[in-house]
């Protein structure tokens, strides 16, 4: 399906989901629907609960209440690996690459459940080219630059042919050039039909890529709409300035 508007049916549904850590309610009765083909940004001030939402979707944390449905199936009781095989994929905030393995080995580790052995080399080459790392397969991953490591991780997350790709701060620590390239990459992935949910702080980046923006605040959805609507929303400015 063509990228853009997000006219497909619901792919991921979080229904009244909460997560409590001790005395802290990190996610509070959150309801959120991601539709097939969407490219959506999740923004909000520090501590709004964005990364916790990703952890709940991926199964690193279990919700204290509420239900998560993915692709029409309730996945609440599934371990992480099963969610992954069902088409959920993540690029984490803290780099989730294997520094002691080569770039190609990293890709292979990621792709093994989704690419047949015979097509592995070809698939790895294609994916590395896609994320701008062509020809670097033999490099030891810890020797990549920071931006390259981020792209590698996007490539790894992509190699599983995800139905939904979760990107947690894909441009963190990148310079302006790298940020722009990353935005283009994400747009082209979405144009190819990958549904993407991305947490990002860099608003230039958000403006460039986002069709829909969800603003989180205090563990809840605070506002939702197009980037223009969000920028015009007086409350959103206020929460960023700490007024509410």
């Amino acid at each position, binding site marked *: 399906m063509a990228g853009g508007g997000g006219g497909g049916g619901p792919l991921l549904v979080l229904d009244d989901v909460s997560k409590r850590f001790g005395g802290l309610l990190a996610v509070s009765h959150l309801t959120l629907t991601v539709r097939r083909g969407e490219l959506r940004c999740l923004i909000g001030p*520090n501590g709004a609960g964005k990364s916790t939402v990703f952890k709940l979707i991926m199964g690193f944390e279990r919700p204290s209440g509420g239900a998560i449905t993915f692709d029409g199936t309730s996945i609440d009781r599934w371990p992480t690996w099963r969610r992954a095989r069902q088409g959920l994929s993540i690029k984490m905030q803290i780099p989730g690459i294997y520094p002691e393995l080569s770039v190609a080995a990293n890709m292979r580790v990621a792709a093994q459940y989704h690419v047949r052995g015979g097509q592995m080399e070809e698939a790895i080459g294609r994916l590395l080219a896609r994320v701008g790392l062509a020809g670097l397969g033999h490099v030891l991953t*810890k020797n990549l630059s*920071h931006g390259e490591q981020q792209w590698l991780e996007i490539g790894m997350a992509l190699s599983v042919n995800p139905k939904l790709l979760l990107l947690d*701060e894909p441009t963190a*620590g990148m310079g302006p050039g790298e940020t722009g390239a990353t935005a283009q990459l994400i747009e082209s992935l979405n144009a190819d039909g990958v549904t993407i949910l991305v947490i990002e*702080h860099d608003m230039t980046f958000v403006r460039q890529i986002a069709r829909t923006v969800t603003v989180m605040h205090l563990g809840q959805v605070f506002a939702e709409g197009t980037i223009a609507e969000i920028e015009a929303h007086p409350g*959103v400015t206020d929460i*960023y*300035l*700490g007024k509410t």
Partner: protein
Amino acid sequence: MLDVSHVTAGYGRTMIVRDVSLAIQPGEIVAIIGRNGVGKTTLMKAIIGLLPLVQGTISLAGAAITAAPANDRAQRGIGYVPQGRGIFPGLTVEENLEMGTLINARVGGERRHDVAFQYFPHLAERRRQRAGTLSGGEQAMLAIGRVLIGRPTLMLLDEPSEGLQPNLVQQIGDDIKRINAELGTTVLFVEQNIELVMNLSQRGYVIDKGQVSATLSVAEVTNQDALIRHLTV
């Protein structure tokens, strides 16, 4: 007071802060502002010494501390209030305060919990309570009160407003101003909360993508429109 010169620092091969220079005079209150994820917290960690520098130098009151470990910098007089407060949840309020006694230990002198209670009387009622059970506002007070015990010459505050209700933000700002005025403590703080920046700072630096992108005068740090340009979405 504090001289940060051409500092580059980061994690592994990732340089989050690049070639940053700051100069803070004794008695000043200076803000570091910028959006999420631009390197403000990394800069604070580099100043207190929790992150080694790749390049650059730091000196405190004329003495080079570039290579000193964090505990040494604290003992030389820096009181660090980290992002998320960094209180010890399993220790009582009183024990948390006691942990501040090593700050400025080079100078020595009497270290009494009264200083903290003087500015945050609310803490006195909770002194035997586990710090982990305090509310967010109380934890913020505890984190500042804890460093006050050692009478730091320089306080580093990393987002003191984080997670606080607006009235508490106002309160904390006033408290910090009183501390600065009455104890003469120099204050360098990282903040995104515009109210607090306007309430507190005498001048400021803007950080963007790991670098100082602008310096702000008194007029600019109290001008809402100027700040909004640097801070908002």
